[in-house]
């Protein structure tokens, strides 16, 4: 980040800037997803207009909602384990913030450039399970407990296909660093033609599909929304939550959707980069400085496309049953992704 700015900033200043950037990178996608897809796209798909009153086309609705939730009474059930009950939404938000650290938005516009970024992302991605399980347990409500247990079972089952789907990308890029993966995709060529670089979605399409399905399940979006199935469990692990604590769960859900879409676009769609051949760049060091501004915009666009697909599926499909859900993960996705690893490795070594 220091290469972008001419002036020297002390360490605390850099950290503050990073953290502020992180807050934007978490909240901006969440707000956009909620307004664009949850308010508007869902409404149009259901033949209604959605919010129209606050601001032009209801675009200020988000702020109105936050104002509304701020005024709601915060009820902690008498039976609940109050301290842990209050902690749970913060854990969920925390996992989102820790996850966004790893995403690169440009040649110098990254928060932290881990050499094993893929590892970090996959490890931190499952921290939110703890928050959900804690929320379900501490509510002292049978629905919450069932929802929390279902969520834990589901997240465990879909964590594996997600991890294994990424191995194919790591094999192709030859690195676990997300920056290297972006460069490998944009500086590559398809049989000598380098017009679009070489996004891994072309060769890792199976991996991409498995990854997106797993993301859908990790986010407990609709075909996989057994943990919060409202017709059976009221609202699952969130049943007892009200007021702003509920809103934090809600923000966490959509912020995590945005961050997972960021990670998916880095791994499979070329991340922040444009094909390097367009501007005659050789590697990461040649990339012009304006990509630090352009990169985040490209990432944001890709994120919107991917979350658009996630939401589209969410609004279109009925819910899986619990046994179907587990069967799908263990008997279909895991064998497929293992076969994908084997095939990718064989081709990579043979060629």
């Amino acid at each position, binding site marked *: 980040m220091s290469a972008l700015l001419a002036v020297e900033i002390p360490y605390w200043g850099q950290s503050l800037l*990073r*953290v502020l950037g*992180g*807050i934007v990178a978490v909240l901006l996608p969440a707000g956009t997803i909620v307004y664009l897809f949850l308010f508007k796209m869902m409404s149009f798909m259901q033949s209604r207009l959605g919010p129209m009153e606050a601001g032009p086309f209801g675009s200020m609705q988000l702020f109105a909602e936050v104002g509304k939730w*701020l*005024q*709601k*009474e915060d*009820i902690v*059930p008498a*039976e609940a384990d109050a301290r842990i009950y209050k902690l749970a939404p*913060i854990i969920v*938000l*925390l996992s*989102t*913030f*820790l996850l966004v*650290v790893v995403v690169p938005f440009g040649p110098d516009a990254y*928060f*932290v*450039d881990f050499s094993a970024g893929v*590892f970090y992302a996959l490890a931190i991605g499952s921290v939110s399970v703890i928050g959900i399980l804690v929320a379900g347990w501490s*509510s*002292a*409500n*049978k*629905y919450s*407990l*069932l929802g929390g*247990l279902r969520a834990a*079972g589901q997240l*465990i*089952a879909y*964590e*594996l296909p997600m*991890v*294994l789907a990424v*191995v194919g990308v*790591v*094999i192709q890029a*030859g*690195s*676990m660093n997300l920056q290297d993966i972006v460069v490998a995709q944009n500086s590559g060529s398809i049989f000598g033609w380098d017009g679009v670089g070489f996004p891994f979605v072309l060769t890792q399409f199976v991996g991409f599909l498995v990854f997106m399905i797993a993301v859908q399940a990790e986010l407990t979006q609709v075909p996989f929304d057994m943990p919060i199935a409202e017709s059976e469990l*009221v609202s699952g692990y969130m049943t*007892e939550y009200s*007021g*702003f604590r509920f809103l*934090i769960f809600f923000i966490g859900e959509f912020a995590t959707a945005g961050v997972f879409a960021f990670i998916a676009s880095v791994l499979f769609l070329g991340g922040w980069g444009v094909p390097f051949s367009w501007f005659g760049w050789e590697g990461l060091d040649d990339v012009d400085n304006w990509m630090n501004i352009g990169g985040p915009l490209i990432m944001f666009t890709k994120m919107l496309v991917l979350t658009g697909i996630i939401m589209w599926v969410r609004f279109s499909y009925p819910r899986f049953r619990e046994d179907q859900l*587990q*069967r799908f993960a*263990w*008997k279909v996705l*895991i*064998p497929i992704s*293992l076969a994908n*690893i*084997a095939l990718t*490795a064989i081709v*990579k*070594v043979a060629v």
Partner: protein
Amino acid sequence: MSLFLRDYLNVVWFGLAAIVLASLLLGIAAAIRPSRPNAQKLIAYESGVDPVGMGWSQSQVRYYVFALLFVIFDVEAVFIFPWAASIERYGAFGLVVMLLFIFLLLDGLFYAWKRGLLRWV
């Protein structure tokens, strides 16, 4: 402090930022929201029916087997990733060894499948 640890210090700052942000918003909410608890309101919500027994009632945990399998496969992933990142260095030998490893694990999965452990009863 080494560069490696400095990277992870940033992670700590992000974690603190999340906690501070959440506490700040919850603090604002606490300042302006009403608080009128009564006994009825504080009962666990179970679709309007008064809850019977404890909320922490025993329920059947069906997926302890899945949890065990998960640990096994996650450890497998830990072994696969370093190999995947430097696949060209290990070449054909590494490939054969790793395919054997993956095959053994797949065999384990099929064994569990055959035993009916993957069935949701």
